[in-house]
């Protein structure tokens, strides 16, 4: 062919040097400033070298070490974008009460605490539906207070709403949750009206239940009033009293509490804290619950 480079002795030597380096398994580079034609010859050498039985596949050590590096890198990237919110799982549409007892218990010991802002190689965000996931879960708590506000501008005191994670809510069943300096009495019902069925009450700042103790939980003497928050200690949904089994049921994830707010054994949610107790006052046959001051009780915004 016309226009070919003249072959020189050095060409053969340089090529041989390159091939020997490759055969030895060393890093090798062609001489600098090759013509395109010469470059192609070295390309071929590299290509043919890769057909050698020795070349074959990546070493197991390399595979494992790169894999580990990739996972570590991925973890680090997810960390960088975490907005540091509490676990933000949302209730699913189907009624959890109808779930079978044998169904695998949802794990809240390992909640997905990572919500990444960008879809990375893969991320949990792509699994959680839609945006503002975290904001939506906070709405559960805020919405309740907001719905019952009498005036504007006062946000509900977040004592038992969604910002409380299951583990941070009070472990002791009898510790009242409302500090005495913010508590005011709220009339719930006449003592005579409260029996063995839970009576719900709603204020600006709390929704709860009162019930009369029949002495069977070993804590509250018979005949005394037990008051507790209705906010499920899992995610803050309002638990619903059921006459049938005399338990409180959470419509969100199926949490079950006894008539006194203790986690029931049948509950599909494990490790639930008890519904926080509220202090009560009985005066002149009327039952009052100590609740935080709200908008409709006196104070300015």
């Amino acid at each position, binding site marked *: 062919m016309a226009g070919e480079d003249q072959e020189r002795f050095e060409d053969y030597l340089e090529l041989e040097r390159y091939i020997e380096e490759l055969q030895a398994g060393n890093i090798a580079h062609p001489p600098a400033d090759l013509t395109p034609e010469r470059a192609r010859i070295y390309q071929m050498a590299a290509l043919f070298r890769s057909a050698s039985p020795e070349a074959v596949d990546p070493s197991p050590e390399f595979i494992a070490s790169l894999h580990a590096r990739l996972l570590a890198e991925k973890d680090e990237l997810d960390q960088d974008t975490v907005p540091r919110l509490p676990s933000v799982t949302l209730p699913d549409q189907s009624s959890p009460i109808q779930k079978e007892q044998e169904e695998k218990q949802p794990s809240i010991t390992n909640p997905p605490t990572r919500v990444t802002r960008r*879809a990375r190689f893969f991320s949990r965000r792509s699994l959680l539906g839609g945006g503002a996931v975290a904001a939506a879960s906070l709405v559960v708590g805020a919405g309740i207070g907001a719905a019952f506000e009498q005036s504007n501008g006062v946000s509900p005191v977040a004592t038992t709403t969604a910002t409380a994670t299951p583990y941070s809510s009070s472990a002791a069943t009898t510790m009242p949750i409302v500090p005495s300096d913010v508590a005011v009495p709220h009339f719930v019902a006449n003592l005579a009206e409260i029996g063995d069925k839970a009576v719900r009450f709603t204020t600006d700042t709390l929704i709860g239940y009162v019930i009369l103790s029949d002495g069977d939980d070993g804590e509250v003497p018979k005949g005394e009033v037990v008051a507790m928050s209705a906010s499920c200690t899992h995610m803050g949904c309002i638990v619903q009293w059921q006459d049938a089994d005399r338990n409180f049921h959470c419509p969100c994830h199926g949490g079950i509490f006894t008539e006194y707010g203790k986690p029931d054994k049948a509950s599909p949610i494990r490790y639930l804290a008890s519904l926080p107790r509220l202090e009560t006052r009985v005066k002149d046959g009327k039952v009052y619950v100590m609740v935080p001051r709200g908008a409709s009780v006196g104070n300015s915004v």
Partner: protein
Amino acid sequence: MHTPHERYQQTHLAAQQGTQTSETIDRQWSQKVQEFQSFYQENLTLIYRYIYSKVGNREEAEDMTSQIFMKAVRDVDAERGPHSMQKWLFQVARTTIADYWRAYYRASISSLEELLDAGWEGPFNEEVAIPSEAPNERVQRILEALPPQYREVLTCRFLLNLTIKETASQLGLTEANVKVLQFRALKRAADLEPVVARTSKTP
């Protein structure tokens, strides 16, 4: 004007939308991890072999393969399907090789493109595809297309890994002869390669 109860219901229902229990998410997460494992395993070998066939040595192949996958973990969009991810990987591999060549070969850009295109669907593809065949297969077809003596010397030196001395002995030539022969054999291989690639596409 909404009643408080209606407002309550609205906000409560709003919170219920879009989703999934933590259990479902955990399950999907491990599924995703599984997908990553398989994706990684399949593509690692492919990319590694491709890079190796361009650089000819293990160490650089490992380095560049690592580079490519680290970049994937950082930059690749999670929503792509596996085939799309593979294409992306090969695109990055291509660029990585081009940079490598630019550093060591100092060849012109146009020849780089030609070199890169060899082994792809065709020399003038607009869309970068995944190589149609493995490097090993390319080598086989080229060998079959070579004249016998060229085929012999390349088989000895590359497939059998014989030294110059052993090859000379095998082929009944002097060592000097072998050096010349291998040079010309590789040159002919380079000339043949685009022709062979174009004429026999894998089904």
